[in-house]
């Protein structure tokens, strides 16, 4: 082994085992995995998720327009960036989960915890969008988060609906 072999080997041994990425990658990962099914679901459940998403989006938009109109202020470009909006969404999500009485309290707690992670990720992305409003990656991530939140809520409602049907039989 010559001096250069030795130098190379020593340099390899000195390489750090861990390197922190320049950005926190968790919000992007959370956006991609939240509510993502790990098993095959029937097609109608996707339709239900889509309809719920529309309902949430329409409701939020209506609330936003109403509030801004009442204030006499124009609606912001995103229309959804402030704390009151997130508080409304969080309250809606929490009430949906609490109504799923067929689920154990522990399961409801896990779902609520996941919803809070999604909401926190949404707020972080909204803050980033405030300084970089046209960033397509951030907008796509935010869109994914809305969809994932809706899927998670739809799945929760779906289990409750199935229990109600069984109880009716």
């Amino acid at each position, binding site marked *: 082994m010559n001096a250069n072999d030795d130098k190379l080997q020593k340099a390899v041994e000195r390489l750090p085992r861990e390197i922190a990425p320049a950005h926190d*990658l968790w919000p992007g990962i959370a956006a991609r995995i939240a509510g993502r099914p*790990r098993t095959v679901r029937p097609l109608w459940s996707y339709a239900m998720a889509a309809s719920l998403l529309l309902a949430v989006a329409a409701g939020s938009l209506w609330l936003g327009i109403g509030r801004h109109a009442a204030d006499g202020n124009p609606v912001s470009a995103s229309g959804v960036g402030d704390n009151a909006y997130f508080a409304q969404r969080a309250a809606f999500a929490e009430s949906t989960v609490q109504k799923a009485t067929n689920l154990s309290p522990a399961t409801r707690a*896990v779902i609520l915890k996941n919803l809070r992670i999604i909401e926190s990720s949404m707020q972080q992305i909204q803050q980033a969008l405030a300084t970089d409003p046209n960033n397509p990656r951030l907008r796509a991530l935010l869109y994914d988060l809305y969809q994932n939140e809706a899927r998670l809520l739809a799945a929760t409602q779906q289990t409750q609906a199935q229990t109600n049907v069984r109880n009716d039989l």
Partner: protein
Amino acid sequence: METATAMQLPNLPTPSPAADEDLSLTARARDGDMAAFEQLYRRYVGRVYAVCLRLAGNPSLAEECTQDAFVRAWEALPKFRGESRFGTWVHRIAVNAVLERHRTQLRQAAWVTVKDDAVLEAVPAGDEDPGKGLDLEQCIATLPPAARMVFVLFDVEGHSHEEIAELTGLAVGTSKAHLHRARQLLRARLET
């Protein structure tokens, strides 16, 4: 009567607290607990990103592959049996995520012979200050893709040529040739 405390227990290896915590977090994440999965992410992102960065040679691609690795791990968690540590498992997923992105380059590399210096010597000069000495990370990033991947997998990650052949689809001989050239190129940079 013999009590349980007086019984001689076999000399079993004691699991470390970190391994115990991994098991508990993995079980919770398998049940859908994203907060537990986030803790696993925080614990292992440094190692996963390091291997992605060295294999990909590009920070933004390394970030994408790191994200892909954790998303795939989340999806595959129900099938994870805990035969290895979560960190080892997600590390392997990350290596595959980077290699998949480079599949085309690896297919081309399978046809590159050791004497094909036109390709292998095409190493752009790093922008490090020569007076500051060697920055091996930067030198690795400037290696041609196949040579870089084989070097990282063999010399940094400790895989055998047979394992590298299985992971990359390269022949064992080709893997050895790429390693030889990678070391030559890095040594040449060391001399400067």
